[in-house]
């Protein structure tokens, strides 16, 4: 039974999710180390699928490894690298290993990665992929071929509340909900006004769709500038960048800002939790979770 489903559908608990570091080597020892760090705090952890268009251990293999180490995976599938056959194979592979949480994404373009000469696939888009995951839960492949028993996926997706066209993002959230997504993890957003508008809009037209905004822990203005300059779809207002870059103690100021953003996000309609990520080697996770009133899970 998916704890993500249980917590989001049958309780009012705030649900925290995170991202498992991409795996490039180090075997299960590395998985174990990361699992120990994340397990006390998170109901579900994303098993990424070649994030930022860089090759790593596969989404399915990573999700299985996480599950073996007591982490509930939210297995991402992106549309960039696989056609509809391979995407359905990913879904069925997940089901085979008892992985119920499936998250469907468009995926960064190949030009964002370190092998920009690759062929981009995009045979289907994320909304079609969500719908196909839903179809599979009804006991058939896209072709109509029967699956018995049908997998019991708890389907999710992502959305960017802060990228243009802003009004359409809300309608697109509804479209993903209708296709089968039960909750959306949201892209990093430093524009509180845009996040407010998005959440209010979604609460109005898709009241059952749950939202999980993303909060990123950073230690200085440098990673913030990196996101602002290098990651399409993320924009950080200048006054927020200045606030951190001009502070005597950048790490402390960045931390305070992050807690403010997190507390604000948690007050918004339809928000049921937070997705917490960090820029590697950040040691403020525990402090952050305690400051949000959380205690380690058993």
């Amino acid at each position, binding site marked *: 039974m998916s704890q993500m489903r249980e917590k989001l559908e049958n309780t009012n608990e705030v649900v925290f999710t995170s991202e498992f570091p991409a795996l490039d080597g180090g075997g299960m020892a590395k998985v174990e180390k990361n699992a120990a760090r994340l397990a006390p705090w998170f109901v579900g952890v994303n098993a990424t699928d070649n994030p930022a268009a860089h090759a790593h251990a596969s989404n399915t293999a990573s999700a299985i490894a996480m599950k073996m180490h007591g982490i509930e995976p939210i297995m991402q599938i992106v*549309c*960039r690298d696989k056609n*509809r056959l391979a995407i359905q194979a990913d879904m069925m592979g997940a089901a085979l290993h008892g992985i119920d949480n499936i998250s469907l994404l*468009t995926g*960064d*373009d190949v*030009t*964002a990665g370190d092998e920009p000469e690759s062929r*981009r696939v*995009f*045979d*289907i*888009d*994320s*909304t*079609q992929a969500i*719908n196909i995951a*839903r*179809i599979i839960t*009804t006991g*058939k*492949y*896209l*072709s*109509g*071929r029967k699956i018995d028993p049908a997998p019991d996926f708890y389907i999710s997706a*992502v*959305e*960017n509340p802060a*990228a*243009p*066209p802003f*009004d*359409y993002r809300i*309608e*697109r959230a*509804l*479209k993903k909900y*209708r*296709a*089968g997504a039960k909750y959306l993890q949201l*892209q990093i957003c430093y524009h509180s006004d845009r996040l407010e508008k998005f959440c209010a809009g979604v609460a109005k037209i898709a009241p059952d769709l749950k939202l999980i905004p993303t909060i990123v822990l950073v230690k200085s203005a440098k990673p913030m500038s990196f996101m602002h300059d290098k990651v*399409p*779809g993320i*924009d950080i207002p200048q006054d927020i960048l200045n606030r951190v870059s001009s502070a005597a103690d950048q790490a402390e100021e960045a931390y305070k800002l992050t807690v403010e953003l997190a507390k604000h996000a948690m007050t918004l309609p339809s928000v049921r939790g937070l997705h917490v990520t960090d820029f590697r080697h950040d040691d403020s996770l525990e402090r952050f979770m305690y400051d949000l009133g959380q205690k380690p899970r058993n």
Partner: protein
Amino acid sequence: MLKKLLPFVEHVLKKPVWDCRMCGQCVLHSTGMTCPMTCPKTLRNGPCGGVRENGNCEVIPDMQCVWLKAYDRKVYLPLPTVWKDHFNELRPPVDMRLQGSSSWINLVTKRDQQTPAGWSTTDESH
């Protein structure tokens, strides 16, 4: 004969206006008269999350996002209401077998409405 001639005529007419990619299953009417196949990710159901602050494409930074254009046109162009209503419908995956064929023929024969046997949407009005 018609099967050979029509794709040529269609391409000649639609390429300069919409940068038509001859997918053979035209949805222009429901996408603000903007061809979704010109999106570098060929997304048929809305923009990705990589749209830049200035509204330009993640992949081609000096090009406006195709879906930003589509949405603006849907809002501002005097298109029939039924076309505008179709903007948010869930468009099915592209049938790759129709690539290069005439969408006009496929429209008349309803070939462009054929979807895989398992395809269904929850929104029955579409």
